[in-house]
């Protein structure tokens, strides 16, 4: 322990505030999730699964409801090599079209 540590403020409160803000932003979106989002998640997952194999958890859908504009955020985690990521549901898959 050096002398400086005696004077350094133990400011853990800002850490608490930041952690809470991040956590609650997530929890509110999960708990306030409507059926629309659940439906969207299912259907988007089905479309993606036609072309690449992804885990269910790899597709995240979030809605941010603003006063005038709402945004829909779709986050898909694509495996490193989608062709070798696992068994495909479709025996003769089409090559994913380049975007």
């Amino acid at each position, binding site marked *: 322990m050096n002398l400086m540590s005696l004077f350094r403020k133990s400011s853990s409160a800002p850490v608490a505030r930041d952690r809470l803000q991040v956590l*609650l932003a997530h929890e509110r979106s999960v708990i306030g999730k409507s059926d629309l989002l659940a439906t969207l998640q299912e259907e988007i997952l089905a479309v993606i699964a036609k072309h690449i194999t992804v885990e269910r958890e790899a597709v995240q859908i979030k809605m941010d409801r603003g006063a005038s504009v709402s945004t829909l955020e779709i986050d898909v985690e694509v495996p490193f090599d989608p062709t070798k990521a696992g068994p495909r549901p479709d025996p003769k898959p089409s090559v994913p079209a380049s975007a």
Partner: protein
Amino acid sequence: MGKVLVVTSGKGGVGKTTSTAALGAALARSGENVVVIDFDVGLRNLDLVMGAERRVVFDLINVVQGDAKLAQALIRDKRIDTLSLLPASQTRDKDALTNEGVDKVVAEAREKFDWVICDSPAGIERGALLAMRNADVAIVVTNPEVSSVRDSDRIIGMLDSKTLKAERSEQVEKHLLVTRYDPNRATRNEMLKVDDVLEILSIPLLGIIPESEEVLRASNMGSPVTLNNPDSAPARAYFDAARRLKGEEVDVVVPLDRKGLIGRLFGRRVA
């Protein structure tokens, strides 16, 4: 027609029962007719905090089931005659409380009193939902601590979706009561500041109750802190909060316990 108020928090041990007793007594002392109802079936404690534990004959479930009239079950406070208590049942048959039964009892209490204060059990289960069901106003009791703030956020979500007001597309009026606050630790950035909690939960502030030995002293004595030591810091904070509930504009300050010279020299405890 009185107002129905729920004191709720999600997390246990943050001061719901203490706050129910203190605010109930503060309102009653200002001349309002107040009943406090304990919804913590199986773990009742409001009777003990208010010093009425030896006077319980009938309880909430007896009234809901029609075994006793509301007037028979109410315990009139010995110190303030405008303050009454409806205790919870100590038996475990929680299912005896139905929505309709609770609605009926609260409606009858609303006819007789200016304020019906429902002390919610901890958690987000049925008991907590029953306590908030009829509320016009909710007091969300929160400690400046991460788990309490998180649970308060959950409870605020439920107040907006699981109450009778929400079913009618109306809003329960929500207020934040920060308890066990230590302004010195907050200044040193060791504790969440009230502004941090307000920003995160974004509901209006009803009051800040400072951490104080007086709260334990009052519960030891079986007396709401606003009656046991009305000049103490937490009592003054509760009196201010009660005035705000009645619609008065009162500046928010954090009262501090007055300490003598010795107390000031040696009163600071090791954190």
